[in-house]
């Protein structure tokens, strides 16, 4: 994956009658559809992709190493900058890992609010995914529609914590802030708006013949192979594997709500699209339940002022919009910073499926597939 290492799996092309030359096309790091600074070196036969080599690292900031030199609360700030379109999910993953390490009980109210924030974040991130994915395939209007709704979510977050992108919205043991008065009502209003807007997106895309032709049977991958490649999140669920950390290993308050895990059947780009669209609805369902049932109580558990987890190591994963984001943290019990900090980034894991997915498709499908696996380069490169 990284550097100049090339994929060894050789593509099976029908043996050509004539020798033809391959063309090497360098897509990115400056390319409108690589969602940041991803670079893909494509080997092309005409417009057909024979092989793809993904080159990452253009956005590497050393967050993992940096975290080993920050104290436990400062790291939350760094996690904002990994998946910057879903900062709250990353915050939550980190905070829960530290809580697990310290065996801290988080109050129920905090867990509810965390769930709401997380699901709002999922919708926000999926809005961005839908917009850019549709844009890559040429439907430019969906992009602006999706961003219009994402704006509402950003407003909600702004009202909650004052930030619109990097929220820093969790603390070890709970939350930094309680929800402002009237916020829950606004969230409910947003849910109603979002419901109607989802229908609008689907009118533009779901049964659109061009959309179907562009996404059906593109990048087909079956369940076992998807697991073997380490895919996760909606990308994996599109292949029919019902793996969702929220259901399988419930965290925050997810065990208290009803929701379904949508899965696909064929594992193509269209299924991944449908899965994410359904996840919008399930997220709205969770938010409605959570907002209606927010319990009273404190928002921070019993945490010492100076966080210093006992010696030990732990791994904990949450379901971010992109997939399973896991944190491995080791503490030596003495210093005020982690001894070892490592992230299992879902975007990175999904990205390693990309060469397998694009092989045999056209150049135009490459951008559709990049959109379909929904990556954020901030998280891939860290």
């Amino acid at each position, binding site marked *: 994956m990284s550097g100049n290492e090339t994929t060894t799996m050789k593509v099976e092309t*029908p043996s050509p009658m004539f020798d*033809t030359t391959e063309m090497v096309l360098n897509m990115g790091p400056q390319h409108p559809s690589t969602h940041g600074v991803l670079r893909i070196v494509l080997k092309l036969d005409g417009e057909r992709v024979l092989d793809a080599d993904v080159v990452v690292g253009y956005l590497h900031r050393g967050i993992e190493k940096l975290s080993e030199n920050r104290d436990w609360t400062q790291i939350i700030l760094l996690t904002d900058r990994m998946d910057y379109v879903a900062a709250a999910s990353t915050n939550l993953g980190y905070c829960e890992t530290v809580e697990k390490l310290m065996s801290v009980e988080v109050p129920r109210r905090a867990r509810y609010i965390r769930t709401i924030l997380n699901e709002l974040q999922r919708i926000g991130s999926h809005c961005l995914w839908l917009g850019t994915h549709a844009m890559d395939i040429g439907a430019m209007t969906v992009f602006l529609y999706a961003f219009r709704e994402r704006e509402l979510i950003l407003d909600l977050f702004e009202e909650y914590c004052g930030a619109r992108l990097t929220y820093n919205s969790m603390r070890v043991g709970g939350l930094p802030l309680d929800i402002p008065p009237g916020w829950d009502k606004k969230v409910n209003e947003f849910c109603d708006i979002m419901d109607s807007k989802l229908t609008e997106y689907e009118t533009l895309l779901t049964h659109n013949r061009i959309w179907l032709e562009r996404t059906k049977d593109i990048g087909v991958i079956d369940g076992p192979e998807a697991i073997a490649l380490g895919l996760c999140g909606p990308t994996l669920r599109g292949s029919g594997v019902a793996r969702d950390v929220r259901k399988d290993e419930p965290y925050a308050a997810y065990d208290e709500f009803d929701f379904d895990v949508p899965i696909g059947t064929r594992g193509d780009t269209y299924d991944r699209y449908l899965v994410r669209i359904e996840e919008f609805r399930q997220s709205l369902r969770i938010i409605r339940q959570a907002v209606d049932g927010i319990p009273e109580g404190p928002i921070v558990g019993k945490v010492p002022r100076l966080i210093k987890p006992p010696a030990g190591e732990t791994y904990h994963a949450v379901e971010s919009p992109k997939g399973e984001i896991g944190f491995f943290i080791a503490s030596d019990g003495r210093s005020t910073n982690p001894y070892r900090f490592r992230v299992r980034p879902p975007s990175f894991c999904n990205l390693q499926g990309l060469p397998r997915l694009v092989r045999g498709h056209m150049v135009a499908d490459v951008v559709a597939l990049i959109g379909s696996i929904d990556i954020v380069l901030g998280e891939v490169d860290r």
Partner: protein
Amino acid sequence: MAEAIVFYGLAALILGFAVLVISTRNTVHSALYLVVNFLLVAMLYVMLGAEFLAAIQVLVYAGGIVVLYLFVVMLVNLKRPPETHQDPRRQTRLGLALASALLAELAAIIVYSATGESAPAATAAAAAGADIAGGNVEQIGMLLYTNYLIPFEVASMLLLVAMIGAIVLAKREL
């Protein structure tokens, strides 16, 4: 007078671009000159009252055939110039000699025929019962679908065969 100016201008340009076609090193430039040449010849057709032919010339030659040439030139992305390791001088001399012999022959024929009696234009038109000034397209269509129906069908068969042939040649596996 005006006709003469236009004719000589066009003729000079046609010959000039034709020379450029065969003398340019860069094949893409050659193809471009060829397009210009075809367009100029189309203008000549308009002068000759053959508007349909002019339109077909532009449509088929300039719009179709040369595009094919350009495709091939681009696909045949040459790494070495094709004419390096031959002895071009001998070839050139021989070619020019043969060509000038042919030119002399043609010139002789033209001079001979030009000194003969010119065509009785009016009677021919009367015999054909057609008036070239009006509806060039109708006349050609009429002839194509009556007197020349069989050649027309043969030409269509030829095009079909050519199409199949081109597909077979271009397709990598059948």
